[in-house]
């Protein structure tokens, strides 16, 4: 079957406009600025600095922990998460140091950061630290000095203020681009 040139042109014209009309509102990566929303892809690394001094024996599970975002998160030349904005997490694990050289443990879960439009960006990741390995020393001390050495306490787990660490964006998330002044 032969198609006339006019009909073929009309079909191409309709296909072209149809594809524009069907374009998604939220774009990932390049070319999304005009639509008003951009997507922060899941797995994007967010560099953070810890703002609290954390000590395993003083912290409680669920207690809030604060971070600062250390670098602008730029997508498609737009800053979506600003350097210096706040990120929050919580204590996921906190055990005290104890006798027989038992060291404390401390785990943080990083929850979210605030994007330029005020949206909470869900984050994942977070470190877990132990207070040090002193088990062998305690065992040797017990052998040398007897049961009295069982009262040797392990170390408390600590993560000092200023520690630099990374979190990851938990799945694709849309951020509105603020209008330019």
């Amino acid at each position: 079957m032969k198609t006339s040139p006019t009909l073929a042109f009309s079909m191409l014209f309709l296909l072209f406009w149809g594809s524009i009309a069907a374009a998604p509102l939220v774009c990932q990566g390049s070319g999304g600025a005009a639509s008003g929303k951009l997507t922060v892809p899941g797995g994007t690394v967010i560099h953070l600095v810890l703002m609290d001094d954390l000590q395993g024996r003083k912290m409680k599970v669920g207690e809030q922990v604060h971070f600062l975002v250390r670098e602008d998160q730029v997508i498609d030349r737009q800053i979506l998460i600003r350097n210096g904005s706040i990120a929050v997490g919580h204590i996921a694990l906190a055990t005290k140091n104890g006798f027989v050289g038992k060291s404390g443990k401390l785990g943080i879960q990083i929850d979210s950061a605030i994007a330029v439009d005020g949206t909470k960006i869900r984050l994942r990741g977070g470190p877990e630290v132990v207070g040090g390995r002193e088990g062998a020393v305690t065992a040797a001390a017990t052998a040398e000095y007897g049961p009295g050495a069982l009262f040797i306490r392990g170390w408390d787990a600590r993560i000092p203020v200023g520690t630099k660490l990374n979190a990851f964006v938990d799945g694709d998330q849309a951020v509105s681009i603020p209008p330019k002044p």
Partner: protein
Amino acid sequence: MDNARVIQMSQKGLGDDVIIARIKSSVTRFKLSDDDLADLKKASVSDKVVAAMIDSTRLTIPRVQIDGNPVQIHTIGEQKVGGRLGHDLTMGIKSVKNKAYLEGQHASVIASRNPVIEIELPPNDTIDNYIVVEMDGKGDRRELEIGSIGGTVGEKVGIRSDRIMRISAAPAGGQHYKITTVEQLKKGEYILYAVGSADFPHGVYGHGFDFTVQ
């Protein structure tokens, strides 16, 4: 001090020598790409001042980032003798260890188990001078065995080979390299150690860039 400040000083009519003296006595954050240099030229900043700006960015110590986080160089300047109890208990079979250490339970950078170490070396430094070494976490410090005396081995000096991690260094242009570990690291304390940086008579047991792996 940044490019804008230099342009400002130049436009205020301050002499080259004054601007250069200020550059030398300040912490600088110059941007010196071709476009930035053209902007400085357009703003009538003299070649002499631009040369001083370029000179101020020359590295004297390596610049290191681990998983994208900048790490400061640390000097291992403290040392202790350990393992005396084990030595006594085993009737001298176990050696006494000489350990250098860094203060603090953990490093100020927490890295992944497959850390990407980006290093920019100063001129005349080579990537062969850098090794990744596992340290012992000890509650209030991180220890590095630098020698042992007695026991079955007699005397040994240097970092234990089983504590040195296998690494792969890929050139990334100029004096930039990307170091990765061949195997996934265990949770613990590590240091990117500069081989030959120790100066025992002066109480320096080496320099390095420490990090904690989670």
